[in-house]
């Protein structure tokens, strides 16, 4: 790929070309007819201009190379172009001349296809055969061969030639995809020559493993060197190679194993042994030399004690080949013992226990909650924790849709009342709840038959529900739905009325009125403090609602506020206060009303209404007050006369 003159060429020209190709590539992707677009035609011109001038350009994942130096793309389109070439295993790009717009479009069309589709069809080079001239020639990477593609004849180049040439024959066979038995055959054939087959086998193993490790550490470099490992299983070739061990004659297996065990700490040797089953090792063990036996047993103990090893497997706990043999023989005996016990009925009881356990009634909701709690508890990754939270809320709403309120309740309460996660995760959970909480969800909960459960759920949704309902209340025009919203909101804030306080300063009087109504409907005396915050609201309709809320929340505590409201500047507030006071039976109401009359500060209409109210209440104190008013013989002013008239009327009505 490198070109001696590469760095001597004008880098500006190279960049100009790459920028031009990048722009054309973007144009190709964006426009239905890219051939009409200026950037596309410009690229064709550039290709013609630089034909034969430039060295082969190496392709990396999102970048280009010339002479081993990286040409960092200046534009995103160039980077994307490089990436697309890279995924199609294009190793180098050469400007060969004779470009046509149709050819460049065809070139782009091929590289725009999914890589697996192109690979299945024989690779990028094959796909470009027969296309009109694009002015570009590519070289394709391949595991075992390299093909030139541009419609010209392929070059019979083996990119692994150098690499493979260095490898011992068995490893070469493995790289060529030979079956394990064929690899073994190649090794055995070495016996007839000068080589020591076991040494060759072990050396080849190391060569292969190192090549693969290098390739994994730097996939781009390995691709440039022509090695392409299956990404999902890069060690397939190595495994296949180790498998060939089991096709070797026993004497050779023993020799190989002796070599491996002699240098057990050498990198790769333990991996080699890891591939063996316990059965494999126990069969070979008796045939090994004593030092090799010792090392193998040492390895087995180490492997078995390793968390990532094969616990209870291999040869742990055994200290000699004799014991291994004995253990092997005991396998069938031990299992047979178990079976004999079974035939004597030892297990009958066990099976009964198992059957009853398996047939015990299953509560899916319990499983659901336990798994969700477990997932919340063990998930340490932030993004997956969010996913758990979403699945949790998703299951909750699914239950709601199916009218399974008890299940929904269990799932929500079971997590929120005893959170299986730390406090630092609470914001994530809260956000999930907020996302889930829509008015539809809230109405489904609120309208369920199981009102007690519904209230518990609503209470736990707390601030998430408050935000949704308040926002909806602010925009809902239908009066019936507004009433519904207020009712639901009242149930939501039953446990935490202060959640509404943040919204009580809203500039929309009607919203504040509804919030006060919701506080009133919550029925909890603790809401009085929140209501009190807007007791002096500028809008009389809010003040009126405040009075109603007081009465609903704490009738006794409401009395002084109602009495004070008799002096409210707005007539409707005062009328409401009168109406509400009438419904209050406490005796001290009479005294308060009498005092208020005595202070003589109420507007006349309200004072008259209070007199009439006292008449209707009919208590001893009220009657005394009325008699005093009615008995005045000389009064001056219309207000006093009105009061006397009202008192007399009240007394007459009473008699």
């Amino acid at each position, binding site marked *: 790929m490198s070109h001696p003159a590469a760095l001597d060429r004008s880098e500006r020209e190279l960049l100009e070309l790459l920028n031009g190709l990048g722009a054309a590539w973007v144009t190709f992707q964006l426009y239905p007819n890219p051939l009409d677009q200026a950037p596309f035609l410009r690229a064709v011109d550039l290709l013609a201009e630089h034909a034969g001038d430039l060295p082969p350009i190496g392709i990396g994942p999102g970048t280009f190379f010339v002479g081993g130096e990286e040409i960092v793309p200046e534009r995103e389109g160039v980077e994307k172009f490089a990436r697309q070439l890279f995924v199609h295993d294009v190793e180098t790009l050469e400007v060969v001349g004779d470009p046509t717009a149709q050819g460049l479009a065809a070139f782009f069309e091929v590289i725009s296809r999914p890589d697996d589709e192109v690979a299945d069809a*024989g690779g990028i080079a094959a796909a470009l055969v027969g296309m009109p001239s694009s002015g570009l020639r590519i070289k394709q990477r391949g595991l075992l061969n390299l093909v030139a593609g541009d419609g010209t004849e392929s070059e019979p180049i083996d990119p692994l030639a150098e690499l493979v040439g260095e490898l011992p024959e068995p490893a070469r066979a493995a790289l060529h995809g030979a079956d394990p038995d064929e690899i073994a055959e190649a090794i055995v054939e070495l016996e007839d020559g000068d080589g020591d087959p076991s040494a060759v086998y072990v050396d080849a193993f190391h060569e292969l493993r190192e090549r693969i490790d290098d390739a994994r550490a730097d996939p781009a470099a390995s691709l440039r060197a022509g090695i392409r490992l299956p990404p999902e299983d890069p060690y397939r070739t190595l495994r296949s190679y180790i498998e060939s061990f089991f096709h070797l004659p026993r004497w050779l297996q023993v020799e190989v194993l002796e070599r491996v065990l002699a240098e057990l700490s050498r990198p790769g040797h333990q991996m080699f042994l890891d591939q063996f089953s316990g059965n494999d090792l126990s069969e070979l063990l008796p045939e090994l030399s004593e030092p090799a036996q010792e090392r193998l047993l040492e390895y087995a103990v180490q492997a078995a004690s390793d*968390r990532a090893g094969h616990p209870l497997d291999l040869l742990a706990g055994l200290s000699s080949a004799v014991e291994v043999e004995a253990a092997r023989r005991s396998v069938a005996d031990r*299992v047979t013992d178990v079976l004999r016990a079974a035939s004597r009925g030892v297990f009958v009881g066990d099976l009964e226990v198992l059957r009853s356990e398996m047939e015990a009634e299953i509560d899916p909701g319990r499983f659901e909650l336990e798994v969700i709690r477990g997932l919340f508890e063990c998930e340490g990754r932030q993004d997956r924790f969010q996913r758990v939270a979403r699945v949790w809320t998703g299951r909750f709403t699914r239950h709601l849709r199916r009218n399974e309120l008890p299940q929904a309740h269990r799932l929500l309460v079971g997590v929120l009342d005893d959170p299986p996660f730390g406090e630092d995760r609470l914001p994530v959970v809260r956000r999930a709840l907020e996302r889930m909480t829509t008015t539809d969800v809230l109405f489904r909960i609120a309208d369920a038959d199981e009102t007690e459960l519904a209230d518990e759920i609503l209470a736990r949704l707390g601030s998430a529900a408050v935000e949704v309902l308040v926002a909806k209340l602010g925009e809902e025009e239908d009066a019936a739905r507004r009433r519904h919203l207020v009712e639901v909101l009242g149930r939501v804030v039953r446990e935490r009325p202060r959640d509404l306080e943040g919204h009580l300063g809203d500039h929309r009087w009607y919203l504040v009125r509804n919030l006060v109504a919701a506080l009133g409907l919550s029925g909890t005396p603790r809401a009085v403090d929140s209501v009190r915050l807007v007791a002096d609201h500028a809008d009389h309709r809010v003040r009126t609602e405040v009075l109603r809320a007081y009465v609903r929340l704490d009738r006794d505590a409401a009395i002084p506020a109602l009495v004070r409201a008799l002096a409210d500047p707005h007539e409707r507030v005062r009328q409401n206060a009168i109406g509400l006071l009438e419904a209050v039976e406490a005796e001290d109401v009479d005294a308060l009303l009498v005092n208020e009359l005595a202070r003589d500060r109420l507007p006349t209409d309200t004072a008259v209404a209070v007199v009439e109210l006292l008449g209707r209440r009919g208590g001893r104190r009220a009657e005394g007050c009325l008699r005093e008013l009615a008995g005045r013989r000389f009064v001056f002013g219309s207000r006093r006369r009105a009061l006397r008239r009202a008192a007399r009327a009240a007394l007459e009505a009473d008699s």
Partner: protein
Amino acid sequence: MSAAAERQVSAFLGGLRRLSRQVGLYPEGHPATQEAVELLGEAVQEFLDGEPEVTLTIFQEAFFRNRVVVPHASLEYRSLLQEMEQRGLETITLVPPISAADLFDLAAFVGGVSDDLPADGTIVLNEPMTVDPELDPTPASKLRTSYGNVLDAIRHASSAMVVRGSFELGTVVDAVEGLFEHTLSHPGAALLLSTVKSHDEYTFFHSVNVCILSLAVGQMIGVDRDVLVPAGVGAVLHDIGKVAVSPEILNYPGRLSAEQWKEIEIHPQEGALAILAAGGEGSEIAANVAFEHHARFDGEGYPRVSRVRRPHVYSRLVQVVDTYDAITSRRAYRRAEGPSRALQILLDGAGSYWDPDLVRAFIQMMGVYPPGSILRVDDGAIAVVVSRTEEPGAPLSVVTVVGPDGCHLDEPEPTILPLDRVVRQELPDDVGVDPASLLETIEGGLRV
């Protein structure tokens, strides 16, 4: 059918599938198709194996080579088989030397690109004489089909999980119900079929095998059908979370580092999460099985959570059969062990790793030599156990597949084998025998 013969059929079908895709993309004569034709030609030579004529039959969702079923390839190339059935293909008769043009025509026909039949006479489609019209479906073929259906369901579920993070549970449930019916009526055959392994699709085949074995244990214990199906769904989905683990780690050929183990250990929670997201009836139980299938009986294991109880009995059941099937399978990091060795490992871990009652129940069901065990006999012959041993120490019901001279028999020979004639157990890969291919033999001989 020997494992080698199975491989030949697989190679032929693999080559045919590749070429049928190529012809949809490139014209005849294109280098890509030429290369695929050449590869198919090589596979055909192996497939013919020197015989003057070979017929591949497509019947009852299975491939047959010269009237002998090819079980593994029937599952592995199930989608190709279905495509062939849709195209009305019943037989493909190959008469060497096969022409490249006929191979191309065959692939074009199978791929639906052309309706032209091979014209050179070296490949004959649907030759009337080779099709026996009186064939009836057999339990074995139905069982194999239901196995394939579960395989399809788990494949689809896994790919949907990769794409969408979730999948449809209903399809899996339906497939498991079908498999359950056939496992129930032919438990011996089902156990034999559960020895099918795949290196490339280990997790999928393993999942179906775990499902069969779990259902079989449940059946032996005497559990009701309604209870077992959800357990089977949990069993088949227990490893679905592995799609979230890097394949490079899953396929790493050695002991894993702590970091790699950390990634492996997320698969129960990923699986449970996906199942819960899928929803549907039974999702809670299946999710629980997926979540708990590495939680040990003694409270250890992973994922580590503050459990207040032991793993549920379904999870414990899946743990036992999961271990058994994993040990007896060739893994990326270890070669397969024999069934007896697997049973011993289960016994050793009973009470700590696994529920002792379930381990014993499992061993009781499987016997010393479970169906599918490959035994070396004292005269050098190789036999495969084809049904369960009811009484300990009782002779084994086997079929001899390799004679004392080391040659594979054309027709497996059923026989009764006293236990004392067993020298040792062999592994399928070591002796080139695929136990699952004997399914039809024990079910009364399905021959086309």
